[in-house]
């Protein structure tokens, strides 16, 4: 699958926007494809939720043997669309070049007893939680095709086998194509679920496979939410109260009266939108409005206040998330004591595609075109709030221009629905970059107090951590899921650490501000891996031990961690000398079921100019359905985490977010991107770990630890751009 690429051919697909209600053709789109590869339509959603020649809700096979395999989750670049249909094809024994995919319909799932189950792409769980289901769907379909053929030939099924979209009766050599059997097979029901392959039997799973969506993404044909075009559609620009949780008090509409193309000013409880015949006109008109906001005392808050509040909170007892032994006594009696406070700021997701949604709310039907990580939750959430029956809501999920946890809510869909109702037409509502950055649901800021004790031989005997961090459950309105003051995201990669330290106590303060928080790529590990892995490095240096050897001594009971650690040490040439000004640092963690670590090599001048030159990754995700995607996700995760480490800071002033665009919220670009290499250190067995997020977590501590290796300066606060990295005072 990873071989040479043949010539591209063009195929035409008729794509439709809203066939169920209006039968409106949206356009014709050219679909380039890879020779020998599976494909996906440029408009990946499924309007009707049915197709001709269905074997079941997941698979349809046309008379020409082309196979439609529905993908029930989302594609935001993480490659799961390709990986999951590989799992089906592995068992179906169909020709991979004849496979195409589309999103499974959330509306159909509602109508057919939740046939597609969980449709969310969050928590790096798309593949690890669905691979088995998809393998079974493929196996079940294959067995029915075989039974249909055996019945046609009146031979025992045991004499028949399927391969390459053909069933063969082995004694006679008779053959029937899948496309000739689908009608009969669709009527069959198996008594038992057939066995699925064991890993050594895989022929497709485990092969580096080009992603099905890539050809659409090199010629502009892939349709994202922002690209949707619905006949008769208007456009809306929106501005929310700059202080989160504040409300719209009033707005004088006269500045936009008579402006070309402007249709209506729509007031929402916390925002004002302008609807026009063109997006640019809506945006220009919105800029002329001067809404009055009601914000109250929140308008006096700022980041410095939050920081001092959190720093005070971590000096007071918190909820206990983990308690082994007697940490206080062990530290009191330790030969060497360490004590440090670390802090990280709020972070924005800043997906390249700003949030947007297109809605058409008619009397008894709501259509939403949106790129969402959670199509079925979007459907249920909108139905609940808008008092519609779930089957009246049709979510048309598009390609996502980045997700990273941001596209799991219904902020934009709800706004688009209300605006559509206000004008009685389909409306495409697009957030400006500034709206997107200032009205995110952010990675929470966090402060942590860390203490440790080492014995006279440098062996760690105690670890204490007390973190203050916003509650993601409460941020989502799920506060009752907080148990005894603790939630899993707050302590991930912290209380879950495997280090063999006899006395450990981890405490939590779920501390909120008015800044909304949510899931951000790698979630709790995004801050906790930085905290813990930097502090472990502090402990190693206090013990006079090499950081890799220090960790190995605490991980003998965890072969998966040892395999990742040893792979990193070998591939990074750990311990070999480096030129002056250059250094290495390591970070390792466990995130969404995978053990992942990296070694960063940096160059740091005495003037404080930092360049991360090379990063070596190793991951144990148990199994790799598509090793190409695993490598890509770690490469990308590196950049996401490095951007946060170097530049990431969302700060608050007068209650509002200060940053608004990429000039004030910087991103790593090509010039700052390190060379990255990825090594699989798979332990197999029952482990199926996530891949999309883990790579983001270990890069910050690896870089910070490398800075210590070069300068002896310990970085306890991010981003690095705000820290003094110089090692020589400028001479006069």
């Amino acid at each position, binding site marked *: 699958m990873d071989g040479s690429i043949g010539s591209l051919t063009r195929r035409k697909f008729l794509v439709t926007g809203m066939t169920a209600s209006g039968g409106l053709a949206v356009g014709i789109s050219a679909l380039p494809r890879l020779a020998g590869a599976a494909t996906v339509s440029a408009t990946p959603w499924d309007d009707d939720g049915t197709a001709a020649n269905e074997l079941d809700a997941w698979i349809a096979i046309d008379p020409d043997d082309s196979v439609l395999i529905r993908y029930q989750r989302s594609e935001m670049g993480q490659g799961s669309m390709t990986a999951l249909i590989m799992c089906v094809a592995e068992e179906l024994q169909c020709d991979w070049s004849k496979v195409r995919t589309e999103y499974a319909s959330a509306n159909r799932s509602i109508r057919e007893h939740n046939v597609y189950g969980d449709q969310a792409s969050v928590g790096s769980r798309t593949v690890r939680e669905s691979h088995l289901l998809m393998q079974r769907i493929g196996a079940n379909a294959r067995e029915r095709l075989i039974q249909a053929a055996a019945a046609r030939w009146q031979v025992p099924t045991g004499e028949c086998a399927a391969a390459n979209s053909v069933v063969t009766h082995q004694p006679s050599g008779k053959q029937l194509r899948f496309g000739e059997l689908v009608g009969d097979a669709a009527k069959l029901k198996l008594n038992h679920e057939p066995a699925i392959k064991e890993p050594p039997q895989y022929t497709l799973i485990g092969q580096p496979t080009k992603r099905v969506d890539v050809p659409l993404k090199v*010629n*502009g044909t892939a349709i994202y939410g922002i690209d949707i075009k619905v006949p008769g559609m208007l456009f809306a620009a929106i501005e929310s109260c700059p202080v989160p949780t504040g409300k719209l008090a009033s707005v004088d509409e006269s500045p936009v009266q008579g402006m070309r193309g402007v249709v209506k000013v729509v007031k929402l409880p916390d925002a004002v939108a302008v609807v026009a015949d063109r997006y640019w006109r809506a945006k220009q008109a919105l800029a002329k409005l001067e809404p009055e906001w009601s914000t109250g005392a929140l308008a006096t808050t700022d980041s410095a206040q939050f920081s001092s509040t959190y720093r005070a909170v971590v000096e007071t007892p918190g909820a206990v998330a983990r308690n082994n032994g007697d940490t206080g006594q062990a530290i009191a009696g330790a030969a060497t004591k360490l004590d440090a406070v670390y802090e990280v700021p709020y972070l924005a997701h800043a997906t*390249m595609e700003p949030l947007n949604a297109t809605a058409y709310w008619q009397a008894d039907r709501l259509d939403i075109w949106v790129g969402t990580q959670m199509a079925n939750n979007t459907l249920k959430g909108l139905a609940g709030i808008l008092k519609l029956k779930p089957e009246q809501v049709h979510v048309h999920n598009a390609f996502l221009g980045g997700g*990273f946890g941001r596209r799991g809510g219904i902020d934009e869909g709800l706004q688009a629905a209300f605006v559509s109702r206000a004008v009685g037409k389909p409306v495409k509502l697009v957030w400006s970059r500034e709206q997107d950055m200032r009205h995110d649901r952010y990675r929470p800021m966090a402060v942590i107090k860390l203490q440790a004790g080492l014995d006279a031989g440098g062996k760690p005997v105690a670890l204490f951590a007390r973190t203050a961090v916003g509650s993601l459950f409460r941020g989502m309105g799920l506060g009752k899921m907080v148990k005894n003051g603790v939630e899993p995201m707050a302590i991930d990669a912290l209380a879950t650490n495997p280090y063999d330290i006899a006395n450990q106590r981890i405490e939590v303060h779920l501390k909120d501000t008015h800044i909304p928080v949510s899931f951000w790529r790698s979630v709790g590990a995004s801050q906790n891996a930085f905290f813990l892995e930097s502090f472990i490095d502090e402990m190693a240096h206090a013990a006079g031990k090499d950081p890799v050897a220090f960790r190995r001594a605490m991980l003998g009971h965890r072969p998966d961690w040892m395999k990742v650690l040893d792979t990193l040490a070998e591939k990074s040439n750990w311990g070999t000398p480096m030129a002056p000004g250059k250094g290495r640092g390591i970070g390792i963690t466990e995130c969404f079921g995978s053990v992942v670590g990296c070694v960063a090599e940096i160059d740091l001048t005495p003037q404080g100019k930092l360049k991360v030159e090379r990063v070596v990754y190793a991951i144990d995700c148990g199994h790799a359905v598509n090793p190409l995607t695993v490598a*890509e996700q770690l490469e990308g995760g590196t*950049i996401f985490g490095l951007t946060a480490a170097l530049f990431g800071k969302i700060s608050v002033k007068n209650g509002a977010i200060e940053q608004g*665009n990429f000039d004030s919220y910087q*991103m790593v670009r090509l010039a700052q991107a390190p060379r990255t290499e990825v090594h699989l250190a798979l332990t197999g067995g029952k482990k199926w770990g996530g891949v999309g997020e883990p790579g983001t977590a270990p890069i910050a501590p690896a870089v910070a630890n490398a800075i210590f290796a070069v300068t002896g300066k310990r970085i306890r606060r991010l981003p690095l751009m705000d820290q003094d990295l110089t090692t020589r005072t400028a001479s006069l």
Partner: protein
Amino acid sequence: MISLTVNGKSYQFDLEPETPLLWVLRDEIGLTGTKYGCGIAECGACTVEIDGRAMRSCSAPIGALDGAHVVTIEGLSPDASHPVQKAWIEEDVPQCGYCQSGQIMAVAAFLKNNPNPTDDEINANITNICRCGTYERLRRGIHRAAALMKA
């Protein structure tokens, strides 16, 4: 009326002259391959060729472009056969893909004048943001495209 040639086709627009080319391409002509990312020429997702030069169309008002020749991602090749597009497929560069139209247009224009780029030249000239962090493969893709152009 403002006249533009886009991907070889002639258009005339009765629009406010300050309208950015980006929104003309997307909402007037329907060429949605060119993306909105920031609106201030920071991210490069909207990069197109204007009279042979890579430009950020979100900050190019059409009033200043009367008579200009514009090429978008849809017009770079009829069948995704441009060396940069081929290289992008071979290196599996895009992830979410949202920035990639702009990346490809920037690289295609860059390679016309720099057929044998060094990494330093690439760093100095290709400044588009990719939030998925595809830079490792993007850099390989640039070198591969340069090689394909010579083939």
